[in-house]
């Protein structure tokens, strides 16, 4: 019995590795990996090798792009490219925090609701219903307006908007898995509910959560930028991408101010979208992929 188990395990490991490399070779996923690594490097190292300070005026205002300022300067004479790069440090950690917290809260609530059922399920579902009946941007705007602008309050606003998605997702997964045979088998052996949840149900439910979380990362960055664009997220002089686009709108003819942040957001959303796709193919090749 144990020898067979060993064989099966090594088989699994090998095929998983080859799966990963196959998936990683696909152009979109490769693109996603490159983007992810690029921004990770920027996040960690930009303060070391950035040419200018993102908050200081380093030259005349509103200079067009040139060799010394690849994306020109903004209305206060700050280098735009530096601010775009530093912008990652504003939005990405917050986005990651939102995703992690939303996932944890949503998973806990969704798993409990799905597994326990009954009135617990009903209560959780009604709460998610109400929150999801709000168009997300309006809810986030109302919360941010009440709490005041600032990235920390933006974080709270987006978190409140985002967690129901994961609660719903995990609940759905738990419900469908509950019916599957090996869970019934475990129950027949007499395992406790908690153990069943931990060892059987959760591992299978995690995959779509992980995939979703990866793809959502870009969406949260986008949402945070949208809030900042409206004046509700980051406060000046923070180089957050959304507020930089607002500045670009005010200086409409100086196109270089808004171009950088927009492209940055685009790469993040696209890149993490592809990464999520790739992750799904690695973890669960049975699910329908791209044709």
């Amino acid at each position: 019995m144990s020898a067979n188990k060993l064989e099966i395990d090594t088989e699994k490991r090998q095929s998983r590795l080859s799966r990963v490399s196959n998936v990683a070779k696909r152009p979109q996923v490769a693109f996603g990996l490159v983007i992810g690594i690029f921004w990770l490097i920027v996040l960690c190292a930009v303060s070391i090798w950035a040419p200018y300070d993102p908050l200081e005026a380093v030259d005349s205002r509103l200079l067009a792009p040139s060799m010394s300022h690849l994306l020109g300067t903004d209305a206060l004479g700050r280098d735009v490219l530096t601010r775009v790069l530093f912008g990652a440090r504003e939005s990405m950690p917050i986005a990651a925090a939102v995703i992690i917290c939303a996932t944890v809260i949503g998973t806990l609530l969704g798993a409990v609701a799905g597994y326990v059922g009954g009135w617990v399920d009903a209560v959780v579902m009604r709460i998610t219903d109400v929150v999801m009946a709000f168009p997300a941007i309006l809810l986030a705007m109302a919360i941010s307006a009440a709490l005041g602008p600032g990235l920390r309050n933006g974080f709270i606003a987006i978190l409140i908007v985002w967690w129901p998605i994961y609660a719903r997702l995990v609940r759905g997964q738990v419900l469908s898995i509950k019916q599957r045979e090996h869970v019934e088998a475990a129950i027949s052996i007499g395992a406790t509910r908690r153990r069943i949840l931990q060892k059987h149900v959760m591992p299978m439910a995690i995959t779509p959560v992980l995939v979703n979380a990866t793809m959502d990362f870009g969406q949260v960055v986008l949402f945070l930028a949208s809030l900042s664009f409206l004046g509700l997220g980051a406060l000046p002089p923070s180089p957050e991408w959304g507020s930089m686009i607002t500045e670009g709108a005010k200086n409409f003819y100086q196109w270089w101010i808004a171009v950088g942040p927009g492209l940055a957001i685009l790469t993040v959303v696209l890149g993490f979208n592809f990464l999520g796709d790739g992750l799904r193919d690695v973890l669960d090749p049975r699910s329908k992929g791209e044709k």
Partner: protein
Amino acid sequence: MSAPTSYWGLMFRFIFRRLVVMPFLLFGIVTISFAISRFIPSDPLISIVGERQLNNPVVVAAAKQRWGLDKSMFGQYSSYMGNLVKGDLGISFRTKTPVVGDLIDRLPATFELAFTAMFFGTVGGVLLGVLAASRRNKFADHVSRLFALVGSSLPVFWLGLVVLYVFYARLGLMPGPGRLPPRVDSPEHITGFYLFDAMLTGNFSLVWPILQRLLLPAFALGWGLMGIISRLVRSSMLDELQADYVRTARAKGLTERIVFLKHALRNALLPVLTVSGFSIASLLTGAVLTETIFSWNGVGSYAVAATRSLDYPAINGVCILGGMIFLISNLVTDVLYAYADPKIRLQ
């Protein structure tokens, strides 16, 4: 009474159940948005009275009394709910006019934009999806798929700025922000949809300028939807092409094209309908973000101005309106989908 089994019986029960739940959801929305706006310490008085008069006791007391800010939180809540039941959303702190009136004035502008964007997105998406499916894995396919993908990943407010800059400021091909040409009065108000009003009042010279000004914002809003729908159509059609009836049709000797279009496309349109309907929420979001860029006097720019000045009645009003639009459009889409595809169980 035994459970209805007839088609219409099921349909009726489905709609009924959804309608019954709606008021509770709306109540939840109202309470949450009220709580958000009142329980957090922030002083709306400054928008009402002005910084200069903040320390003038007479002016401040009169203002508090007028806007109900001197009542307890519970008192404010109960009077708000009481008015809400009568259809009164209160008076906006900022515009000093009833919120209901403000919203009604601005809805047509947002709807005109949203529907045009939906039209763009749906028609464009279908065409693009058909193109991609028919030229599978060739260059046209890759280009259209990239186009679709980029569309759903772009920040819509940034896209609005970019297209405005490129097509208006630089190339001069499109007119600038705003619903109407500068020195022109709006057509006589019948629906509030400028396009219809212009046509209905015989003001045909206005139709093209109005349409022109709809193009850029509708494109910016609709590109994302175009992306989603084109991918949907593409994969749907590729699926359908495998199906039996298509093979049968082929065997009968019909030409490739007719097979393709008639059967595959028609069935692929069903999910398109659903997605379109559910896109209202994201179109509303997009409207909030783009209306200010295009100087579009709709609900979106109203919402932005309201949050900036902590205009509680307006914020609550916009949330309720948004929730209602969302719930109703979801219901309508679900019903249309269920109607269009009798195979779907109405549970």
